[in-house]
């Protein structure tokens, strides 16, 4: 890592915190991958294990918070050390949330798999999910190597996720209004798309924390907002 502390136990504590983030990140990545894969394969088998595993993420996040509080109390960290600990706490909470979204995707997938008579495939969903997985992977690397530039790259790439989400949202709305018998499945797909879009947003907030850790300030420009699904309604769809 960077300069060594005179008190070597402090270095060990910080390394431990990084290790916990890496572990939590790996778990979140895995949960997301499993959730998207099982939906894609229409295979309900991994769902129960996935839901059970979410508790491990919660427990690890809790543990990380405890260690961070302990470090703040005992070591009185300053400057980069302080930022690193605060960033770790925030990133851990984001990773825990990503785990929740993966769990929610799995739960909705169960309903979709059970009620689908014929598959309502959605290419963009798979595309979105794999994009978000790449982003998550890259941002965790950026954290591990304190690479603010790579973090900003992740931040920028979220635009594409937002665009995909917006177009999927339109498609699904149209599908629902055209064939009401697919309404249930489609609305679950709608929520899954939203979950993935949210994971993208959370991933950008990790990117912000990495930037903050390195530079001591947040990236200045607002991320260009490409997701305008909140302005989409059926009325305007039909007029077109």
């Amino acid at each position: 890592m960077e300069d060594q502390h005179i008190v070597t136990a402090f270095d060990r504590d910080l390394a431990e915190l990084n290790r916990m983030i890496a572990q939590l990140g790996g778990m979140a990545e895995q949960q997301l991958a499993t959730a998207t894969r099982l939906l894609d394969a229409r295979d309900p088998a991994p769902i129960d294990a996935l839901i059970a595993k979410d508790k491990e993420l919660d427990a690890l996040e809790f543990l990380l918070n405890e260690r961070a509080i302990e470090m703040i109390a005992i070591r009185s960290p300053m400057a980069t050390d302080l930022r690193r600990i605060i960033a770790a706490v925030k990133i851990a909470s984001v990773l825990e949330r990503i785990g929740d979204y993966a769990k929610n995707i799995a739960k909705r997938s169960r309903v979709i798999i059970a009620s689908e008579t014929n598959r309502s495939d959605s290419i963009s969903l798979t595309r979105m999910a794999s994009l978000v997985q790449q982003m998550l992977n890259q941002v965790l690397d950026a954290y591990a190597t304190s690479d603010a530039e790579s973090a900003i790259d992740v931040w920028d790439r979220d635009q594409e996720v937002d665009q995909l989400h917006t177009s999927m949202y339109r498609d699904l709305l149209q599908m629902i209004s055209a064939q009401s018998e697919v309404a249930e499945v489609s609305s679950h797909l709608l929520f899954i798309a939203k979950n993935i879009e949210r994971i993208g947003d959370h991933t950008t907030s990790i990117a912000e924390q990495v930037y903050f850790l390195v530079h001591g300030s947040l990236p200045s420009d607002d991320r260009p907002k490409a997701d305008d699904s909140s302005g989409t309604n059926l009325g305007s769809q039909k007029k077109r």
Partner: protein
Amino acid sequence: MSDNPQNKVKIEARDVQVFYGEAQALHGIDLDLNANEVTALIGPSGCGKSTFLRCINRMNDVIDGCRVAGTITIDGQDVYSPEIDVVELRARVGMVFQKPNPFPKSIYDNVAYGPRIHGLAQSREQLDHIVESSLKRAGLWAEVRDRLSASGTSLSGGQQQRLCIARAIAVSPDVVLMDEPCSALDPIATAVIEELMEELRKDYTIVIVTHSMQQAARISQRTAYFHLGNVVEHGATQQIFTNPKNQQTEAYISGKIG
């Protein structure tokens, strides 16, 4: 702990160099210290913090072989100009030293000494009042109210330090210089002194040397980092302790091998 940009400069140091015989301890210090603020001087042992502090009220004058070059002004007035009355200067610029140094006199007389020689009290009641309020502000009153005639040197180290603080503020100085005032104090007495500094800065300019980064962060509005007789970084305390610009400052405040 916001710092007010309107606070005006009280003490201005320009190219201050100090020599002890052949050895140069300060290599051209430029530093502006604002009124109504606490400025913390931090840095490794031997980097010249005490030396700089002593320049401000000319305490270096009494050290054999010590030579000061450059200028220091207080309210625009050159501290080293021949017209300056050093005794008066030291009443305006009070100092609390690294080691407590009570006079070998009663507790009462330790505090009353300054107000007496500067004629700050018209009556015994007034003097009593100054002594009592100074001891109260320094957080010592409760412990000594029943033994004011006991010798100052009979107090414990931490009590002696608070007595010296009471002595320094008894003459209502403009500027208070404190050299590690809390290094011998317990956490309660330390908190009392920190509270006192926060109160004093409403009227005074305070410069404190401290080896406790937490203390510097808690009590000061501005921090200057000294290294080998130079000021390496000077800025808002909040910035110095969360996001220092200089690598040496970062290493020092976070206890890293530089």
